[in-house]
């Protein structure tokens, strides 16, 4: 694997004070690296250093075989483009004018655009689907539209390395996914290498080839998303004590209700999740059962339920488990049938429902 981007012994910080040290990253051409970590952890500091907006305190950064801090400004501008968190507020500037600025390192002394430059600008507008907006005044756009225009400007620079600091910050879910798809396409089809920071850990894990966890004075973890997620649980990375994160489903759950379970949910096949969420909102501690280990309800119950009776997958539920679930259910004030289908393997759940109904504790 040839490394397009490589840092060795890099230390970053402000005014000569080191914030994060020993950063050793290597990224192949066309790879996507995402920095994750809590606010103020130094993601932006790393990105600014790599974009040469900030001097490195120690160590080296190699981009495509050349030393980053030794390139001329023009070489650098032709090699990499940035999307920063700075809000831009140009007066009376059309979208096309903004995107055309991306051609800066290629045009002559007075910025004359050639036919080729115009074609590249059109292409950049098209890529982030803002062609329709090209004659609009930038300041009249919504935040989401502005962010896409800013990306188009970076693309018009035809960078081999694209650096984005929280590019999804002002976007709704549609544009978030669109933006990340565009980045994936750029990396796959054009071999653009991407280094960015994201707040959405779920999307970061899905869109990136490599993740870098930034926490404390050194790098907490660096590697493929699943490895990183295993080695540094998100709860730990973000000091999450009022909620949880499921790395498999990529879902974030709020804090579970404390105390002994008051409600028993007879769940399965994903029918339990809406009930779990409702109870969680009502802050009613609950138990769930009997759920097969591989069931999606089992994963959700793990982060939301006070207690959960799970059964091995693909096997009939044993009497022993039924007795445990029965005891747990009867210790609750009421029971809820989530409406999961009852079949041969989980007929025990049918018996639980019947029992709850008999005791008058079943709530539909």
């Amino acid at each position, binding site marked *: 694997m040839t490394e397009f981007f490589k840092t060795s012994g890099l230390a970053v910080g402000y005014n000569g004070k080191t914030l994060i040290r020993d950063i050793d990253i290597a990224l192949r051409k066309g790879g996507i690296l995402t920095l994750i970590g809590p606010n103020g952890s130094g993601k932006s500091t790393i990105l600014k250093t790599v*974009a040469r907006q900030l001097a490195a305190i120690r160590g080296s950064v190699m981009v495509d075989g050349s030393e980053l801090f030794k390139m001329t400004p023009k070489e*650098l*501008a032709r090699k990499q*483009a940035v999307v920063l968190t700075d809000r831009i507020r*140009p007066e009376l500037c059309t979208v096309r004018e903004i995107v055309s600025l991306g051609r*800066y390192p290629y045009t002559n002394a*007075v910025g004359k655009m050639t036919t080729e430059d115009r074609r590249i600008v059109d292409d950049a507008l098209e890529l982030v689907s803002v062609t329709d907006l*090209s004659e609009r005044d930038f300041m009249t756009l919504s935040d989401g539209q502005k962010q896409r225009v800013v990306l188009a400007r970076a693309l018009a*620079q035809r960078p081999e390395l694209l650096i984005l600091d929280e590019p999804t910050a002002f976007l709704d879910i549609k544009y978030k996914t669109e933006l990340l798809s565009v980045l994936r396409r750029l990396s796959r089809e054009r071999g653009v290498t991407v280094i960015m920071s994201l707040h959405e850990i779920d999307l970061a894990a899905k869109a990136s080839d490599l993740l870098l966890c930034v926490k404390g004075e050194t790098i907490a973890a660096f590697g493929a998303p699943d490895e990183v997620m295993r080695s540094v649980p998100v709860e730990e990375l973000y000091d999450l004590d009022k909620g949880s994160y499921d790395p498999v489903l990529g879902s974030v759950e709020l804090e579970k209700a404390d105390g002994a379970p008051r409600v028993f949910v007879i769940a399965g096949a994903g029918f339990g999740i809406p009930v779990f969420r409702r109870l969680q909102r009502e802050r009613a501690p609950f138990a769930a059962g009997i759920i097969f280990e591989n069931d999606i309800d089992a994963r959700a119950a793990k982060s939301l339920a006070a207690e959960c009776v799970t059964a091995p997958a693909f096997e009939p539920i044993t009497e022993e488990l039924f007795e445990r679930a029965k005891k747990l259910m009867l210790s609750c004030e009421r029971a809820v049938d989530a409406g999961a289908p009852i079949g041969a393997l989980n007929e025990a759940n049918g018996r639980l429902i019947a029992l709850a109904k008999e005791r008058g504790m079943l709530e539909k």
Partner: protein
Amino acid sequence: MVKGSKKTGSGAGRFAAVILLLSALLLLALVLNLAIGSVRLSPAEIASLLKNGKDASTESIIIFNVRMPRMLLAAILGGALAVSGFLLQSFFRNPIAGPFVLGISSGAKMIVGITMIFLAGSVAMSPAVMVAAAFFGSLMITAVVLLFSQKVKNMELLLVVGIMVGYICSAVTDMAVTFASEQDIVNLKYWSMGTFSGKSWEHVVTALVICVPAALASWLLSKPMGAYALGEGYAKSMGVAVRPFRLALILLSSLLSACVTALAGPISFVGIAVPHITRTLLKSSRPTLVIPAAFLAGAVFCVFCDLIARTVFSPTELNIGTVTSIFGAPVVIWMMISRRRREA
């Protein structure tokens, strides 16, 4: 898009139209300036006077030695002020910046005043010496304002600082006047109120030699100025050498406004109002287009203002700053209000 048919043509077409309009207005202003005054001349008379060249007649002297240098000076310095303002606006990325409101003109005035009073005996007060003194004063106050701008990120607050610095400079100027001899005060008073009157060809040549190259150099900075409008971070990422670029903006802007202050005294609001009108006419803030158009518009504005200053209450002349304030300040107020509304 409703009217997106002529994509590249519309901007260039609009620019041509604006330039044509401003040129026509300038021509009209120049002719009026030659014609109107204590001695009225008809267009036919002017034409024949211009054709025959300079002679000893009163009319010829009025045209060639009084009205022509005066109006040319007004035109050149008007253009210089507009470009100077535009450069400062690019620097601060804010259209409310200008040499007068930031106190830079007052700084120039202070140093010129001190020079006139204390060095008049030893140095001949030629236009070039005055410009040099004013340039020094402009740079000094610009440095002070920049020092504050590092602490004060809010433009409105920076304006207050600029206005206060301006007052301090005026106070120092007044103090210097107290110690000046009768003869110096007359010169100083006359100059410090701002006027194009009594200017010779030497003034015109000095203005021409400084302002035209400075304005051209400013135009050559159009490309980085466009990129700088997106902020320092983006400009840097596109390959703008930010420090030398910022220094060039400040030096050119100071030189242009110093030239105006030295040769005609402090003139208010042109630096903000004219670039704003120009941007509005062009519907664009692209420096390549705005700089030449603003130079022309500044010339038109000042030539008309000077015409008003010397004719409305004739034979009493108004200060040029009085007229530019009456027309310029409302434009600035209108601009600030419409910007607020757009941001809300």
